[in-house]
């Protein structure tokens, strides 16, 4: 009987929430936003196109051709038939003509694609002074692109190093072998098995999980709070209180709002999965080539990580939902709630920001301690679980404490709820709230 009543409250909360326009719009908008985020790198960066670079060579040793040759060996991607990253042309110039030649080239630089035939992506200037100091000047339309500039810098460093070594009489072949760069491929290991995930991917996955929980707790936790205040204001509370216990009302509300949130997350998660599985097709639609798509880190989630994430998501959401509901019960208007909600929101924020430091070093003492504190564990533990190997005992302890914390918070919230929902008038002091809890 009582379960049926809770269920009817859960259903009402869920159905009434999912039916609203706001829910529909936010549910649709985020995937659109996600597609945008996914496509933006493809549409915005020029890295996948061959850059046309002009080298103004005013050096006495005529280094230009050698550097141009080095640049021309760079390819986009790792496939054998990949396009060259740079197309380079050298313009020798005497020291006194340097400025004129350079400015002439710069004038044809930085236009949009197809603006002119003599158009350059950038102009590189080599003089004796800059070669000696290593501080080369590059005039380009995309100097803000950190990744492409980084690549250019690496290429130039290598070419310069090779030239300097060659000048000292060292064999070119030896130079080439000595300066071949190391490439680190990171592959995550989970329970002694390869997880098939690069370090970058597990980073993004951890970040995404923390962010989703953070959003869900803030958005849906606050919605729970708001709807309790609305129930108080519409005076429906008294009708409900005559047939439902405060605990049934609290639990029904938190579960109902939570399941609406979970439904939205499921839709988002589903569309993200679809997006990543169809990334090729979608990319092709926007004219991106396969190599670019390969370089996009789209994480996959192993079953273990998913289970841990969902577990902590549910526990964390219930814990914070109950606390937010209690705050709602204490207040008579949305404005009033802000002051009290801050205390709960602070815990959310601390957990969320702790996650960043844990992502950086998942095995730190801080990460371990944080994953034992019920308020922070939902943010920290899934991240650690996805990034490093957590001993099962530690997980069990964290979950155990989490459940104890949840029960305590629900009990506390229930006590506040019981008195608060029928209290109108001035907002209570903390001392009064303490009296409600002890009563």
């Amino acid at each position, binding site marked *: 009987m009582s379960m049926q009543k809770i269920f*009817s409250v859960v259903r009402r909360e869920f159905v009434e929430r999912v039916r609203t326009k706001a829910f529909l719009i936010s549910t649709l908008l985020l995937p659109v936003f996600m597609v945008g985020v996914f496509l933006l790198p493809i549409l915005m960066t020029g890295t996948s196109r061959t850059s046309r670079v002009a080298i103004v060579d005013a050096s006495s040793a005529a280094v230009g051709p050698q550097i141009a040759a080095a640049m021309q060996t760079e390819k986009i991607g790792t496939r054998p038939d990949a396009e060259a990253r740079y197309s380079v042309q050298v313009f020798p110039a005497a020291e006194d003509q340097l400025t004129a030649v350079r400015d002439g080239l710069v004038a044809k630089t930085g236009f949009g694609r197809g603006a002119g035939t003599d158009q350059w992506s950038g102009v590189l200037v080599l003089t004796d002074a800059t070669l000696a100091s290593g501080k080369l000047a590059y005039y380009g339309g995309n100097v803000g692109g950190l990744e492409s500039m980084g690549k250019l810098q690496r290429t130039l460093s290598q070419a310069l190093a090779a030239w300097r070594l060659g000048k000292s009489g060292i064999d070119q072949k030896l130079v080439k072998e000595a300066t071949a760069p190391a490439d680190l491929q990171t592959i995550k290991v989970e329970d002694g098995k390869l997880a098939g995930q690069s370090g970058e991917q597990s980073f993004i996955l951890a970040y995404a999980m923390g962010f989703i929980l953070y959003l869900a707790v803030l958005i849906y936790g606050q919605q729970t709070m708001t709807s309790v205040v609305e129930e108080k204001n*519409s005076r*429906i509370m*008294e*009708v409900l209180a*005559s*047939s439902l216990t405060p605990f049934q009302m609290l639990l029904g509300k938190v579960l109902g709002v939570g399941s609406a949130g979970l439904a939205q997350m499921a839709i988002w998660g589903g569309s993200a999965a679809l997006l990543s599985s169809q990334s090729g097709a979608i990319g092709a639609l926007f004219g991106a080539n396969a190599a670019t798509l390969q370089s996009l880190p789209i994480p996959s989630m192993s079953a273990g990580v998913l289970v841990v994430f969902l577990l902590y998501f549910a526990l964390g959401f219930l814990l914070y939902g109950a606390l937010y509901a209690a705050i709602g019960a204490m207040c008579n208007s949305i404005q009033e709630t802000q002051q009290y909600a801050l205390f709960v929101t602070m815990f959310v924020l601390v957990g969320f920001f702790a996650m960043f430091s844990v992502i950086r070093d998942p095995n730190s003492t801080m990460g371990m301690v944080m994953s034992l504190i019920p308020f922070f564990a939902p943010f920290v533990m899934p991240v650690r679980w996805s990034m490093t190997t957590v001993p099962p005992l530690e997980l069990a302890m964290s979950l155990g404490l989490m459940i104890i914390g949840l029960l305590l918070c629900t009990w506390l919230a229930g006590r506040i709820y019981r008195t608060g929902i*029928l209290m109108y008038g001035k907002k209570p002091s903390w001392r009064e709230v303490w009296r409600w809890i002890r009563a």
Partner: protein
Amino acid sequence: MASPSVRISAVTKRFSGHLAVNQLSLDVYPGGIFGLLGPNGAGKSTTIRLIMGILEPDEGSISLFGLLDGSRSLSARIGYLPEERGLYKKMQVLDHLIFLGETKGISRRDARVRAQAWLERLGIADWAQKKVEDLSKGMQQKVQFAGALLHEPELVILDEPFSGLDPVNAQVMKDIVVGIAAEGRTVLFSTHVMEQAERMCDHIAIIARGATVVNGAVAQVKADFGGRHIALAFTHDKERAETILADRTLVASIDDYGASAELQLVDGADPQALLAALVRERVGLRRFELVEPSLQSIFIAKVGADAAVAHAEMSA
């Protein structure tokens, strides 16, 4: 006699120093309509909330159907219309009624059938798919009324059920309340409108300052109040009656309504003497009738002073 549906035993409730209900005792027996009367601030709503278990008494106890379990576990047998009406504004009317039925423990399917029947009966079936906020206040009250009665409770508790209703809707509600009593179920309602209580209730309790002033069957209450009461109605020249009505050897007290008045004669005074005096002064009379005391006059006589004080306190 059967055990009372509601028994309030020496209940006291305080709100931060203010005594809302003071050693109140009250029995409501099954069947019939029980009126809980009292001036504003007398503690009517607090008493009802205590019965409904929304508030906990500081002292004393309340039993329902002879059980001390509290109204929530018995909510399937009780219907409640709170003084502060409230519904989910964004919900559709039919969905809302179904939900209210479910919280009383009836199945969803059953609740749907009953909700539709109630909407038909109240003449708002066309609004079933509309949102509550699109309804007029009167219609919202009807929906709430239906919500309280959907599960056919054997005890119906209504806090000021007729306030804010136009005469037509008030009549509809009145018929429903009378119908419930006619089916042998129990109605307890509060009001400060005496005429209504007088016409509908078979038992009343008048409370003031949180304590019972008068309690019992309406006929008994009137008999106990005693005295000879005369109802007067004037057509013209009422001012000529003033010296006669002010004669304290003849008239004990008067409740003056302008065009009519109700007065209580001094013990042993002769109604004929009063009539003769009025005729002699050529006062235009439409009505001169020996009557039972009205609840209104009993109410005024018993709690008039208290009511005045209560009003002064509230406005202070």
